[in-house]
């Protein structure tokens, strides 16, 4: 597993997402209410750029006529066919057994840890005062 330093935390405020290519893989990092999540930017169904879709909630029904709408902003909806994925796990709500979006763990590390390594940020001017978003690949 290789760790990649993505950005200072300040550059990814809550509600934003950042698209990257890491080792030829298209990846998107989301900040949802201060929590960070990473997903492969490719829908496992037909290959759309999954992470360009809207973040919605989870509509569930225990009985006909009873609708519960929860987890607002935590469900990613594919921009093509509308397949829904849990941004925390990559789980599909359409066909969980067959399809799963590839999820990557994302952490926030203090600048001092990033500089001291073993994780060196080659393409960022790292200042040790900041915290950095780091993705494990």
């Amino acid at each position, binding site marked *: 597993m290789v760790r990649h330093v993505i950005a200072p935390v300040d550059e990814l405020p809550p509600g934003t997402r950042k698209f*990257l290519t890491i080792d030829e893989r*298209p990846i998107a990092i989301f900040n949802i209410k201060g929590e960070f999540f990473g997903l492969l930017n*490719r829908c496992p169904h037909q290959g759309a*750029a999954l992470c360009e879709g809207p973040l919605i909630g989870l509509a569930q029904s225990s009985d006909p006529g009873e609708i519960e709408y929860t987890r607002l902003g935590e469900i990613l909806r594919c921009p*093509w066919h*509308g397949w829904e994925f849990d941004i925390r796990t990559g789980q599909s709500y359409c066909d969980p057994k067959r399809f799963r979006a590839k999820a990557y763990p994302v952490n926030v590390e203090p600048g001092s840890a990033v500089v001291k390594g073993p*994780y*060196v940020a*080659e393409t960022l001017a790292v200042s040790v005062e900041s915290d950095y978003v780091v993705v494990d690949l």
Partner: protein
Amino acid sequence: MNIQFRDRPEQAPAASVKTAIADCDIHPARAMPTELYPYLAKRWHEHLQTYGKHAYQGMMEGPPYPKAQPNASRRDAYPPEGGPQGSSLSFMQKQLLDPNNVALGVLNPLQTGQGLRNQDLAAALATAINDWQIEKWTARDSRLKGSIVVANEDGRAAAAEIRKRAGDKNFVQVLLLSRNVEPLGQRRYWPIYEAAQEIGLPVGVHAFGFGGNPITASGWPSYYIEEMVGHSQCQQTALASIVLEGVFERYPKLKMVMIEAGFGWAPSLAWRLDRNFERLHSEVPHLKRKPSEYIRDHIWWTTQPMEDPERRDHLFELIEWIGWDKLLFATDYPHWDYDDPSRVLPAGVSDANREAFYLGNAKKLYGIS
């Protein structure tokens, strides 16, 4: 330890297709309603601004049901220069035609005003949209071919528009929609079939339209998902009508394309028609052959939406009945239910059938060398 990334990259399209394909259902859009004005007489500019368009049903704004994505389209298909999805040729080339190696793209403009109560306006809009297809699309990219849009409820005006385009290589088919005032085999539509046969182009019947009838046979449903499956029900009604009214007896060289309504239902519809035809033949003595024979000889099918059964042998059995020579690949770009050419056909298809499916059948049907 190598840490690298590019900021907000131009992500390569997920699919890249090696061999050339045809895409038999592409929807070009107007960047704005006034884009048609250069092709319309001044009289109609004022008419549209004063009175608007009146369809055969309510819902003055927008389609009968809100669609799953904005403009019923892929969210990644907005052109960078602005405008709705499907309104930019350069972006369509970049997102669809080039990466997917599309050698032939058939345009099917929707929401054109085909079925309006004001038939003169419908005819004027049909002519305008056809001129617009040439100038904005087919003249600028030789891969693209248009469909002749006609004022479908006015058979005489429609036939005149079709004959006007005879021999024009910008067009490869005549376009009808599945929802009309009457089932499509009715006599009011015969002039369309007569003219299409005369100029040697197939008639495509695309799902959708504003016919004034509820979108299911038993009324207006609650959900968009019901409209989606209702398209195949509507198409079955249209096809049964076309066969039983004797359209193919009257116009034996006519070819038709069922667009965007699936094809999995074709065998069962044909079986039911045949079974009833055995018993009720005397009601329709103008039919000289079994209904299934007309269907198999005269009907082509576009693939989007492609049937997707759990077992692929079920899909192959369906196609065996229809014929590998009758399927036309389509993406439905830029619409949200887009099919990706690299993902749509399961493994286990012979090279010859694969080539026919993706390109050969379309080139043959549409007369593209």
